[in-house]
């Protein structure tokens, strides 16, 4: 099993519903977020192209954050999902410095926090909150080892990219372009 997400940059309208859904679902403290939307502009006025990306932890297949963690608080569970156990985390920040995507933040309680792919929902057979709420349905979540899953289907039929592949982290959030 290899959980992954595919996000269609052509469908995303940058509404940030995914951000708010995540904050509510995961009780993210006010002023923090586990996912966020970035805009990149190519070209020069008036010939512009805008790319919108909903970004989050990439649940890397080769996660440097897990490698650097001195206590084992950052760890990998089923489907390659990377999680943090708050009461094992000492807040040293090693994982924050080792993540090329700035996916982690320091929770006001002291431990580190980040996207969990909503593993608590997946285990119940639901979709992650951001995927479920997206009004344009631009996100697909599923198992890459299952060729009939929606993500597998998308990655088979569409062109895609991942962020900073040269970092060697093998990110598992794919952007359809």
């Amino acid at each position: 099993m290899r959980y992954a997400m595919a996000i269609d940059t052509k469908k995303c309208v940058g509404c940030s519903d995914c951000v708010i859904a995540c904050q509510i679902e995961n009780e993210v403290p006010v002023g923090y977020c586990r996912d966020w939307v970035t805009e990149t502009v190519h070209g020069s006025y008036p010939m512009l192209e805008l790319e919108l990306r909903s970004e989050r932890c990439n649940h890397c297949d080769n996660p440097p954050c897990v490698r650097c963690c001195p206590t084992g608080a950052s760890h990998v569970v089923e489907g390659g999902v990377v999680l943090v156990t708050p009461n094992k985390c000492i807040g040293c920040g090693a994982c924050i410095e080792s993540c090329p995507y700035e996916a982690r933040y320091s929770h006001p309680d002291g431990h580190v926090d980040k996207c969990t792919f909503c593993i608590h929902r997946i285990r119940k057979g639901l979709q992650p909150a951001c995927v479920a709420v997206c009004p344009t349905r631009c996100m697909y979540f599923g198992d890459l080892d299952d060729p009939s899953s929606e993500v597998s289907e998308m990655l088979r039929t569409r062109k895609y990219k991942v962020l900073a592949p040269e970092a060697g982290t093998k990110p598992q959030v794919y952007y359809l372009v």
Partner: protein
Amino acid sequence: MAPFLLVLGLFFLFLDLKHKLFFWRLYTTIRLESPMSWGAWVLMVITPLSFLWSASYLKELVPTWRWRWKFLERLEGLVIRYRTPIAWVMILYSLILGIYTGILLSAFNARPLWNTALLGPLFLVSGLSTGAATIMWMSKIHLERRLFTRIDLILIGIELFLIIHLFMGFLAGPEVQIEAASLFLNGRYALPFWGLVVVMGMVLPFFLEVLELRGKKIPAAIPAILILAGGLIFRIIMVEAGEATRYLY
């Protein structure tokens, strides 16, 4: 002095943790892949050892000193008897500790400035050089001072070589590392790095030390303080600049 400086350092490390009450979690696992886990365990061993070591010399320094409890006397006897093996263990551990900071930073692959195998050796040599400078400064024995001045000259030479090599590597590397190097070549950190660290903290004390060895009267404190300050600024700049470098996408 060493054990107290170690404890001061430990205290600062502890202050830097954001989830302090859980710090003991470091000692419920050994994670071979994580440099910080290594560092934590090395400190666990070397801190008490360095206290024992220093304490075993207390009677030589303060002849009237008496240990209050019997078992401390016995412990002292034991330490004095096994001084040589303990010294070897401490040398080994202090080498690991010296290289640890550099390796810790170089393992963070999200920070292109740190992510180079040269950082460990560079931090080690810079640490050894500040150590030699401290002995040079504090020692009352003329021969010892001369010896450590010589050692320090060699260390500064190695350090300069490693720094040049570091930037050569960056400039021949991927885009993110070229960016990182440019912070030092024409960016924000160029002046403090080349001015304060390289010239004031390495080249200048190098010449002062040479003059001193040639018999000129130069107070040992001057090159020593320059080296110590240079070593500190070097660390501050590397940490700060490293945090500013990142992957571009």
